[in-house]
């Protein structure tokens, strides 16, 4: 019998297929969001988590190009640090357990993305001015966060090897850092504005307080 699942796909075909699947997921998530009442933050957070996990898994053919970093910055900016931390940890754990590989690095990724979410919350009033996203600032922050995140996660090799390996390891990973930075700019350009509109619809006065509390603390 024919084994239809065994056909060989080139990396480019895999990527095209995955982008198509991701588009279906994004479209259905946008439809689902419309059925949510305004200010239903946890509903949106669940949709964002699904988008983050599936985006990270499906964009795997291009290393480090995935929407999670931009998602946690936006979550921090709109919903505050605690919710961004929750999203960061859930996406890191779920995508690693399902597909990317779970190990000591998961905690580094969760902390790294969590810290980026906290930065998003701290810079909330710089990133969202008069309910409008400042795309240039967001793109700059997203690019810098991508590189900082990769370097932070690279520290996990110190659990296995000595400090002397760190410099060659980082040097070897420089292209992957650039992938993360460029990928983040791409996601800011294409999806930050619609995501920002969705998030501001669900941004309650409560979460505005949460953002301010996070900054004050």
């Amino acid at each position, binding site marked *: 019998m024919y084994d239809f699942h065994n056909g060989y796909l080139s990396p480019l075909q895999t990527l095209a297929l995955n982008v198509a699947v991701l588009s279906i997921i994004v479209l259905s998530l946008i439809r689902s969001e419309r059925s949510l009442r305004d200010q239903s933050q946890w509903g949106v957070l669940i949709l964002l988590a699904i988008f983050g996990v599936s985006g990270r898994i499906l964009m795997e053919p291009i290393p480090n190009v995935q929407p999670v970093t931009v998602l946690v910055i936006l979550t921090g900016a709109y919903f505050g640090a605690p919710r961004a931390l929750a999203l960061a940890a859930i996406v890191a754990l779920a995508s690693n357990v399902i597909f990317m590989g779970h190990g000591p690095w998961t905690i580094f990724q969760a902390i790294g993305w969590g810290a980026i979410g906290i930065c998003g919350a701290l810079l909330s009033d710089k990133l969202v001015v008069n309910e409008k996203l400042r795309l240039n600032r967001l793109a700059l922050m997203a690019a810098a966060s991508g590189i900082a995140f990769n370097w932070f996660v690279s520290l996990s090799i110190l659990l296995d090897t000595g400090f002397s*390996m760190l410099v060659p390891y980082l040097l070897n990973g420089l292209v992957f850092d650039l992938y993360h930075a460029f990928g983040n*700019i791409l996601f800011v350009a294409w999806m930050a504005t619609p995501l920002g509109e969705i998030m501001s619809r669900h941004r309650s006065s409560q979460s505005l307080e949460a953002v301010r509390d996070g900054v004050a603390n």
Partner: protein
Amino acid sequence: MSSTDSMSDWLKPASVVALLALLLLAPSIQDRLAEESTRYIEDNESSHHGLPAEWDEQQVLCIYFPSDSPHSEFNLGVTMIGPDGEEIGTNEDLNRTGACVGGFEGYSNGLDFMMNSTRMANGHLSVGYEVGQWGAFVHTIGGLNPETLTGDFNGAYWHLDHNGASSMVGIGDLVMSEGDVIEWSIGTW
């Protein structure tokens, strides 16, 4: 409002072009970086410990087998094989079993070196690998495919050490210098 929109107008195509350019340039940038980073790896003399003194400053490849799945030929100590295939002797003090092939010079590509040096062991160390999306993946050495191993672990694989430390890149991307020691042993997770 208009400033935000115009920003996104040029950011959208620019971000796509930038990422495509990076994808095209990445392999050549990666090659340069791999070369550059080998400078930081010390040519660790201690990685020649236990090897024949005549191999100092020369390139060596060692394969170590797990104690519960020893190699049928190399199951007592570590057998030393010269660059012409001649057995130099066996070191039984290394607390592991397997074989080293050494005394080579001038290799810079890890996979070339591995294929040519293992050929000196009369077929006892033949290497099976497949080239995937991210380079060569070694699945079998000397008849042992770690996937067949069972024990108190989730999985086993052929682990690559370069001058006594875990290699950061696969054998296909490994850039070698004179005096380098490449070691394969079973790793588990």
